Every structure is written in C-alpha cells, then in structure tokens.
C-alpha cells in the first residue's frame, strides 16, 4: 500500500473528523450540562444544511459566509426549544426524553421532506472541485475550508467555556448541580443558553458539512448516531474529548475503508463504541461521573 495513499486518506479523515468533532461538541455540551439525550441532533444539522443551501440559492452566499447568521438563528432556536419544551423533561426518565426528542426529530425530518422534497440538494461553490497539490498530498479545498471553519468554531467554544463568566457558570452547573443551586446560578437560563450554544455548534457544523455532502431529509439519524459514538468515545463532559473523538473516528473510518471492505467501515465505529463503553465508559478524556 503506497505511503502517499495512506497519507492522503488520513489527511481527509482528519479534516472530515474536525467537522464531525464540532457536531459532537454541540452534543457533548448539551448532554454534559443539561443531561438530555438529544436525539434530534442530526435533524437539527440537516435543517442547518438546508438553511445554507437556501441561502446559497437565494443570495448566492457561500455556506461559510451564511455561517454567522445561521449560527445566531439556531442559537435562538435552541434557546426556545429548551425553555419551552425540553425544560420540563429534565427530571423525567430517560425514555421520556428520548421519545420527546424523537418526536421532534420525526417532525423536523418530515417537515424538511415536505418543504424541500426528497431530492439531494447541494451547493456548488466556485472552489467545489478544486484541490491543492503539496508534494504527494492532494488536499481537497472545500474539505480544507470546512475543517478550518470547524476548528475555529471549536476553539471559540473552548475559549468561551474556559474564560468567560457565563461559560464557567455553565460548567459549574454540569459539575455540581446542587452546588450551582446553592451559589444561586440561574440554572434554567443557563440550560437554555447551553442548548442554544449546542445548536449553534450544530449549525456551524452543518454549514461546513454542506461543502462536503449533499443534504437529504433522511440524513439526520446517521449523524445523530455518529455524534453519540464520538461523544462516548471522546468522553462525556470533555469538549476536547469530543474534538479528539471526532478526529479519531474520522481517521479510523478512513483507514478502515482503506484496509477492510469500505462497506463495513461503520462496524469499526460501532465496535469502538462497544469497546469503550465496556472498558472505559467515561471515554478517553472524560471523568468518571
């Protein structure tokens, strides 16, 4: 197997993994703080992808340029979703939460089907089919931009949670619910904020992914599942874990596709998930709950 082949495959795995990592980051933040299993994550991402496609078709905007607007919209959407609907489910049993978000997912996915039809939609930006040649490496330009955008957004999230007051408050809620209550943090508002941030992450990931993948209404569940695999492997409650998990899954799937039958490459992710769940359920970088 030629080295350059492996290098190229690993590189594209890394870049794609960054986008997955960002999506998983949103999920990790929501799961880690609000403790709600967001099974509508994939559908929210496809919604953002459709948003990017629509902006492109209407205004000719590159998805990366529509990114800020969409992120803002989705922040608001997430905030509203949490405060109006999900808040009362925080204390309910898991299967109830699951059902709620499942219902939301079904509504969203099929509303998208109604609005946009079943055909795959995509954007064709000018640099869609460009690639850079760096020695033996052939770098896919859209993938580079998407990965870059995902990385920037992830770093922004890190900075927010580490250095801003609100970020610290949110982390406090996650770490010690009672303590946070005692100290007097506005838990409900923080939860809503977190959900909003998680959705904003998903929106950015969606915009980035639009450059790589065509969107159909049925795309959601696969990404929700992928998100969960990454979050578990990387570690719940650890943002770096989510990103690293994304990279790990991205690269391992790429390599699996190269070395094994490509159609079996999702077995690798699930196999990894099973292994991690059994041997180290807190994931690579998580802390024991």
């Amino acid at each position: 197997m030629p080295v350059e082949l492996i290098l190229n495959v690993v590189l594209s795995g890394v870049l794609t993994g960054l986008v997955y990592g960002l999506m998983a980051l949103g999920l990790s933040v929501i799961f880690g703080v609000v403790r709600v299993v967001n099974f509508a994550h994939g559908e929210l991402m496809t919604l953002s992808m459709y948003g990017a496609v629509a902006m492109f078709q209407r205004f000719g905007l590159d998805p990366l340029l529509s990114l800020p607007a969409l992120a803002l919209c989705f922040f608001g959407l997430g905030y509203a979703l949490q405060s109006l609907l999900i808040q009362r489910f925080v204390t309910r049993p898991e299967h109830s939460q699951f059902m709620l978000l499942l219902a939301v997912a079904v509504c969203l996915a099929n509303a998208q089907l109604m609005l946009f039809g079943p055909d795959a939609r995509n954007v064709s930006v000018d640099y869609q089919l460009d690639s850079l040649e760096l020695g033996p490496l052939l770098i896919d330009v859209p993938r580079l931009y998407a990965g870059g955008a995902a990385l920037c957004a992830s770093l922004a999230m890190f900075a927010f949670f580490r250095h801003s007051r609100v970020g610290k408050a949110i982390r406090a809620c996650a770490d010690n619910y009672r303590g946070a209550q005692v100290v007097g943090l506005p838990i409900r508002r923080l939860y809503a904020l977190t959900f909003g941030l998680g959705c904003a992450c998903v929106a950015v990931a969606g915009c980035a992914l639009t450059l790589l993948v065509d969107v159909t209404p049925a795309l959601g569940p696969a990404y929700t599942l992928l998100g969960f695999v990454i979050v578990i492997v990387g570690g719940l409650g650890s943002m770096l874990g989510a990103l690293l998990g994304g990279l790990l899954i991205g690269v391992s799937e790429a390599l699996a596709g190269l070395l094994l039958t490509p159609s079996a490459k999702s077995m690798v992710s699930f196999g990894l998930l099973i292994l991690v769940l059994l041997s180290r359920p807190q994931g690579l970088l998580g802390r024991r709950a």
Partner: protein
Amino acid sequence: MLLPRSGFQGFIGQSCQKGADLAPGVLRELLGVDIELMNADTETNVDTARTRAERLIQEGAHVLVGAFDSGQTAAVAQVAEQRGVPLIVNIAAAPQITEQGYRFVFRNFQTAPEIVKNGLSLIGDLLSSTGAEPKSAVFMHVNDTFGQAMAKGILATLPGLTQLPLRLADTISYDPAAKDLTVEVSRAKAAKADLLLLVCRLNDAILLRREMVKQRWQPMGVLSPGSPGMYEQQFIQALGKHAEHCISNVPWYNPKAELTRRVEQAFLRQNPKDRLVFHGLNVGFTFEAVLVAADAFRRAQSVDPRALAEAIRQTHIESKMMLGAPIKFNAKGQVEGIGSACVQNLNQMPRVVLPAAAAEAKPVFPMPGYKA
C-alpha cells in the same frame, strides 16, 4: 399503483408516478380503454407496502402495479397471490420475485442476472465499435440489495467473457448510506486501472464522480454495466461538464419507436419543465406495466381479476416502448428478452449510442481527458 413516494426512495417513486399519470390519456387514444389509477404510497417500508396493497384490493383495484423496490415488491406479490389479483411489476430486479411459483405475479423488467449479462455484452460492443482496448478495470459497487446482486453476477460472468479481456484490478464495495467516499476513490485510483466499472445509485454516483475530479483521476471510461445514477437528471445537473461521457448500460426505451414518441408528447404536456429522457427507465417501464394491464382488459372484456390474470398471461405486445423482444410472459410470469442500451451522457443529456439500430448518437470512448 404502489410506489414509494416518501421515505428515502421517494424521488424514484415520484419519477415512476409520472409514467403512471400519463398512461390513461395515451392508452385511451391507443387502445380505446379507460383506466382509472388508484395510487398508494409504500413509504419505502415493507409493512406499509403490504397493508396498502390489501387496502387497494379492498377498495376495488383490479390490477396492482409496483413497487420499484424488491423487498416491497415481494411483500405486495404475496398479497396479490393470496388474493388472486394480478400484480405487474414495473421495476424490481431480484430474480426471486418470479421464482416463487406465483401465478398472479408478472414482471416486465430484467432480472439482475439479465441486466448484468446485457450490460457486459454491451461493453463488449462498445469496445469493438470504438476500437479501444482497456486492459484492466476496477469495479466499485454499492453494498445493498441491488448492488450485491449485480456484483455477484458481474464477478461470475466477467472472467468467462473471452471477448472482453479485462483484468479485474480491485473490487471495492461501499456503503450506500456513506456520505464520504474519499477513501473508496483513493483506493480505486491506486489500483491504476484503465476502466472504472460502477454499480451505483444516484447519490453515491454524484459523490464518486466529484471525488474523482478532486483526486484528479481520469480513467478511460466510467461505465455502469447496469445501474441507475449516471443518466439521471440530478447527476447531470450536479456535475455539469463532469457528467459528460459517463456511460450506463441499462434497460431503456427505443428512441425511434412510435410509442415512445406518443409517450414523450404526453409527458411534455403533463410536465412541461421536464424531459422524458431523464426519467427514461422509470417512466417507460411504469407506463408499459399499465399498458399491459389495459391491453389485458381490452382482450378479457371483464374486470374479474382471474380473467385479467389469464389475459395477461396471453399478452403479446409487439409495438412497445422499451428496447427488446415483444412483451410476452413466460411460464414464470417473466418477460424474456428485454433489451438494454448503452446510454452515454452527451451534451448534458443521456443519449442512446448502442445498439446501432436505435442509436441517437455515436459513442465517445475513451473519455476525452484520459491520459494513458
């Protein structure tokens, strides 16, 4: 009409529906027969297909037509057989459907082995008519019901075809739901083969071709020995000039047939912004299925399902739309001798280039841009 109009096969079902919708008008002119369509959506779900079929029969359907997907068609076939209502399969390639010994199931479509055989022999014709001599091929296929059946057929038949001396450099099967085919294309490119043989669906065909361009891989030809995808409108729209010269060997309509002309006119009347050529397979076979039903009705002069089934068994339609032998069902309810055409994307439209008798243009092979 039982078609998947929602669920992930929705866009195909809707395409087939166009063929059904234009049928009553054309058939009234042609045969003087009035057909009423009752439509049901199988929702790309086997259970739904079954219950919907029961429902249609209960509501008085005399003949069932459908259902594109092999699994759903099999479910409907069981209902049809049990209730004694004829089912005419428009599109479904799994051979088992007509191997179950059913008396009420009829199929006017090629089985997967036939598609493979015709597809490969057309490749042979293509090479001999253009004088090209590729030595090796890499075979990529989607790992689902359709893809796997095709792959088995190809892997079995290809080595035995002496007039097609192709060495199979690598076989790569990929997940139909995969959104990222970078690795698969890298692997295929590394096989350094002359030809790419592809069994795909629409979405992955688009992904693969894009990836090929990005990775700067230009083989002698991108050839499908029998699968959807590359001749479809979305493929051409999404890829523009990169869709050019891709070849699909598929069952197709005869562009020079009289019936084709009529159907095309009706299609344009109902879908002024669309072109028949982009829905050739779906519309053509769906229309022919309804044609068979109407023709049987005309001869049987009754709506009793058993009488209709008998009449269908006696079908012999010479002037048809799709390529190949006249429509005549054998003892298993299968039409033999349905032909395939070599369809190449030329000037942003799929055009029949082989067989020569039905050709609209000459094949272009190797693809321009190929460097040995």
